[in-house]
Every structure is written in structure tokens, then in C-alpha cells.
């Protein structure tokens, strides 16, 4: 719960519904936007590529947050839908020669429909059993359909590689990390804004009702099957967008990018950021990605003492991530977003405690 400063009076409902209600907040957001636009021009390419990873993680984790945090449907197979989006976009561009924005949309919708297919069991099962079915979605989609069949379309071997310069939006060719960064910013801001607004509507309230108590929601007249499937569809679409962005920044896709590990990773990001909060997705992605990059520097700094350590960095990274999930759940179960609210409230209320 955020507090408004003294002396803010709303005269219209419009003002009360506004996302940013005071001039101070609007200025802050303007500053943030300026920072995001200027940031890549002032730093080195390495940081821009890290920012792209953060953006990809945010896009991927948004769907997970929607399913787990907003609608209460636990999913451990979200990488499958990202993979569907990525592959559909790649196939659209390579086989059918569609322009990138069109194949992005096709990929997103296909990923959404695929997600609904595996969301169907949610009409009957929940909790642990739903975890099992979404995990099955992961194995069936990525390890079987994509690895064995989709990868062979066009005889390109195991991964799809896009020739440089094919990812274009109109006359704008995305051929560098810097351009992918601006695409990422547009997609991330667009997705978050769309989702945040969706959550304020009848649909969003229905999802929250299902999360809190599905039987109660049903007695209140919420069609829970329809809204659960809608949640799976929207989450799949967001995953598909993430997959399409992945192509624009890396120029190729391979089944190895979408393992069960990545699905679990996304759930971990959401937990660390804070369940049920869109800010949490951003905080979680930033925290996890930046911490692991910092860890990478620390490990390469220890090269002189332990010469084999950098080769094993992957394991250090995974182990640290695993422990981070465990410790967040034990000691900060509401995640970083809650801590951020606490900090803001502290400053808003200063010098009083509450």
C-alpha cells in the first residue's frame, strides 16, 4: 500500500484512476524513461547485452507471474511456450518469408493457443497435479515435438539460424545489441503496460478471485474454466513475445535454450522478485541477472587462486541461484517488491515510523 502525500485532492474519477497521481511521480517516471533511452548510448556494449538478458528474463517471467502470482495456477513448463514463440517466429521468417513483426504476432498467438492446450487440465486439477501437467508440457513440447520434429523442418540441423540482416521492422534493421535493446524496451514497456491495465479490469479481478479461492469465485459467478484458460492464453502470448525477442537478439534458436531448468529459473525469478507483483518481475530479473554477472566477475577474479574455477562457473551460478531461491523463501517470502514498498513507505512517512 503506497501512501499519497498530504494535500493531494482528486476532483475527478479519472485522476483517482491514474497510474501516476502526483507531479513528483510523473517526474520520476520521466526521469526513468530518459535514463532507459540514454543508458545504452553512454555505456559499453557489454552492459547493453546484459540489459538485453534482463529484458528477455522480464518478458519471459511476466507470463509466469500472471499464471502463478495473479491466477494461482502453478506452472513449471513456461519455457515450452517461449520455445513455441521462438520457433514459430523463426519458421515464419525462414520458410514463409514473413516480415519480423508479422511472424512475431503469429508466434505469440500460436504460443498462446499451445498454452491453452496444456492449460486444459487446469479445469480438472490444481496444486501439485497441475505442476505435473505443466511439467509434462515442457517435456512433450521441447524434448519431443521441437527436438524431434520441428527442428528438422527445412533440414537445417538442430538449430535455426537466421541470416544477418533478416530481422527487420520496416526499413529498420536490427543487427546489433543496441538496436535489440530498443526493441526490448518497447516490448517490455508495452507488455507491462498492457498486463498492468488488464489486471485492473473485470478479467484481472476474476483472476485474483480464482487465485484467492476458486470455489468462492465460482459461487460468485466467475466462470473459472474460461478465466483460467484466458490466463493461460495471455501468459502464452507473453511467452511467445519473449521467444520472438530472443531471436532478434541472438539470431538463432535451439531446443537447448528452453530446458526445464529455464522454466524453473523463471519461477525462481518471480519468487525472488515477489509473488503477484509486476514490479517484482522487474526487480527479480534485475537482481538475478546482475547478481550472477557480478558473481561471474568475482569468479574470474579468483582465477589465479583456483585455475579451474572459471570453467565450472555454470555450476557456481546454478548453485548460487538455488540457494538464493531457498533463502528468499525462508527469510523474505514476499520478495524484493515488498521490501521496495517498505523502503518507499519509510521515506514517505519520515520522520514518523507509521
Amino acid at each position, binding site marked *: 500500500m503506497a501512501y499519497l502525500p498530504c494535500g493531494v485532492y482528486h476532483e475527478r474519477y479519472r485522476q483517482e484512476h491514474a497510474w501516476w497521481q502526483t507531479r513528483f511521480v510523473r517526474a520520476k517516471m520521466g526521469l526513468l524513461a530518459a535514463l532507459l533511452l540514454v543508458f545504452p548510448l553512454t555505456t559499453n556494449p557489454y552492459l547493453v547485452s546484459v540489459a538485453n538478458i534482463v529484458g528477455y528474463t522480464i518478458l519471459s517471467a511476466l507470463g509466469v507471474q500472471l499464471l502463478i502470482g495473479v491466477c494461482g495456477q502453478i506452472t513449471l513448463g513456461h519455457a515450452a511456450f517461449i520455445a513455441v514463440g521462438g520457433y514459430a517466429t523463426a519458421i515464419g521468417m525462414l520458410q514463409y518469408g514473413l516480415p519480423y513483426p508479422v511472424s512475431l504476432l503469429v508466434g505469440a498467438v500460436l504460443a498462446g493457443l499451445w498454452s491453452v492446450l496444456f492449460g486444459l487440465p487446469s479445469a480438472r486439477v490444481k496444486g501439485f497435479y497441475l505442476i505435473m501437467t505443466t511439467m509434462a508440457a515442457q517435456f512433450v513440447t521441447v524434448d519431443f515435438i521441437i527436438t*524431434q520434429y520441428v527442428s528438422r523442418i527445412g533440414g537445417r540441423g538442430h538449430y535455426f539460424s537466421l541470416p544477418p540482416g533478416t530481422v527487420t521492422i520496416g526499413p529498420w534493421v536490427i543487427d546489433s545489441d543496441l538496436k535489440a535493446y530498443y526493441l526490448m524496451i518497447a516490448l517490455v514497456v508495452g507488455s507491462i503496460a498492457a498486463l498492468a491495465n488488464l489486471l485492473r479490469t473485470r478479467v484481472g479481478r476474476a483472476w485474483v478471485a480464482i487465485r484467492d479461492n476458486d470455489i468462492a469465485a465460482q459461487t460468485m459467478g466467475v466462470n473459472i474454466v474460461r478465466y483460467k484458460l484466458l490466463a493461460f492464453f495471455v501468459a502464452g502470448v507473453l511467452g511467445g513475445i519473449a521467444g520472438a525477442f530472443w531471436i532478434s537478439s541472438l539470431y538463432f534458436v535451439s531446443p537447448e535454450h528452453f530446458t526445464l531448468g529455464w522454466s524453473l529459473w523463471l519461477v*525462481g525469478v518471480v519468487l525472488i522478485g515477489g509473488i503477484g507483483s509486476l514490479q517484482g518481475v522487474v526487480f527479480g530479473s534485475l537482481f538475478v541477472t546482475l547478481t550472477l554477472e557480478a558473481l561471474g566477475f568475482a569468479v574470474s577474479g579468483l582465477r589465479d587462486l583456483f585455475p579451474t574455477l572459471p570453467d565450472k562457473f555454470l*555450476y557456481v551460478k546454478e548453485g548460487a541461484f538455488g*540457494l538464493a531461491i531457498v533463502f528468499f523463501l525462508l527469510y523474505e517470502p514476499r520478495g524484493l517488491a515488498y521490501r521496495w514498498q517498505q523502503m518507499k513507505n519509510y521515506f514517505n512517512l519520515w520522520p514518523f515510523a507509521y
Partner: protein
Amino acid sequence: MEIFLELVLTGIMVGSIYALVALGWTLIYKCSGVLNLAMGELTLLGAYVCLAFYTWGFPFPAALGATLIIGFLLGLLTERLFLRRMIGEPVLSVVMVTVGLSFFFRAVVGFLWGTDTRVFDPPVFPREPFRLGQMVFGQVYLWSFVAAVVLLVVFVAFFERTRWGLAMKATADDEMAALSLGVSAKRVYALAWAIAFMAAGVGGTLLGNINGLNISVGTLGILVLPAVVLGGLNSIPGAIVGGIAIGVLQNLSGGYLERFTAGGVKEIAPFVFMVILLLFRPYGLWGWVKIERV
């Protein structure tokens, strides 16, 4: 027909290993209500610990015994440090703690032992195939089957015949009543995790003997999930039957369906079966019907 029998028998033998691991899973769920997704990594860890002892020159039974002891201690430690605080938390939190642990354990294994496939060298079980009429099996399957069955009998006897087993059954049945009769629930939880680690360690060692040991043995451990869903989450006989059934199903689909597809059916058949089962009978063969409904 011989091919069919051979596939079924091999399936039963591999399935008995799954049954052993599934037993450990069910035990944890029955006693403490924790849904454990780290079972695959526990098998992996146990297998590598045993391999380490074996390569240091321990005879195989001694290495297996050492694995059991280490598994017991690690199980106690894991329960005490991480899982005890999570009892009664929402499903997602508990599951994700075990997911975090699985990341951690896999990282430990990868860090210490690398990604290359290791084999037990010299081979533990004789290489000559074992013949039964026209059918041929590797001896390793037969011995794994024997070892798994012996351990299953030991564990079941432990539940049925000892004081500790009785305490575990009581806690699983009604925690409050057990507490009021002087059963220490904490010790029961700790014991359940210790037994699960031990069962997983032996299961992993046997799997590692069949095909060599690398990080993918951990994904084989995920197969216990379809097995326990088939058996009903909280039924010990269900876990054993489910494990064997999944082994048979996997082998049959590998033998008969592989030719119609591009490959990989063997790995996903148990999961497809599980999804279909969940749609029609989510409580499995002998699970409590009311389980997991709010």
C-alpha cells in the same frame, strides 16, 4: 512374443529401481506433506557418492553402505536446515524450496565431478548376458532388480515391524493424535528425509551401473513423479506398483512406438500417460480421493 516378454521383464527390473526411489518420495509426502521435486538430484548425488567410494578402492557393498550412511546424514541435515520451516506453507513455496535444493545439488555434483559420463570401473556386475530361454538380459538388470527388491522388503518391514515405522505410520495418519501420544513429529520428518535420501542414493547407484553415470541420471529420477501419481501420492504399495508400471510402460513404448516417430518416445511416454491419467483419475490407484482439494 519373446520381444514383448523381454521388454516387459526388463521394464519390471528397471521399474523396481524407480519403485525404490518412488517409495522415498511417498514417504516424505505421507509424513510431512512436502512435495519433493529434488528427487532426481538426490539419486544423482547418491550415485556419485557411491562412485567416489568405489573408485577409491572400497569393495562395492562397502561403497553402497557408505552411500547409505552419507545419505542418512545428508537427509537429516537437509530436513533440519531447509524443510522443517516450510511445513504448512503453501504448495508453491514448499515445491520451490525443493526446486532450489535441486539446483544446488545438481550444481554440487557438476562442480565436483564434471559432465563426462563415468562408469563403475572395474564393472560391479559381470558382463556376460543372462539367458532365459530365448531371451537375453544384461546381468546388471537382474542384480539391480535383486538389490532393489531386497531394499524394498527391508523398508516395508521397517514400517510394519518396528517402533519407528509405527511412529511414522501414526504421524502420516493423524499428526495431532500422534503428537498427543508422545510421537516426536520432528524426528519422524527427519527420518523420512533420511530414508528418502538413502533410497534415492541406492536407486541412483543402480541406474548408474546400467548405463554409466552422468548428469542425465538426474532426469531419470524425475520419472518417479509419474510413478507416484499413478500409485496415488500417499500410498506406499501404490509407489511400488507405480514405479514398476512406469518402467514397463517406458520399455514397451521404447520398443514398439519408437519406429513410428523420430525418436525420444521413451522419455516422454510416462509423462503423456500421466497427463491422461490426471484428467480421468487424479488420485491414482490407491490415493485418498479427497487429497488436494480445498
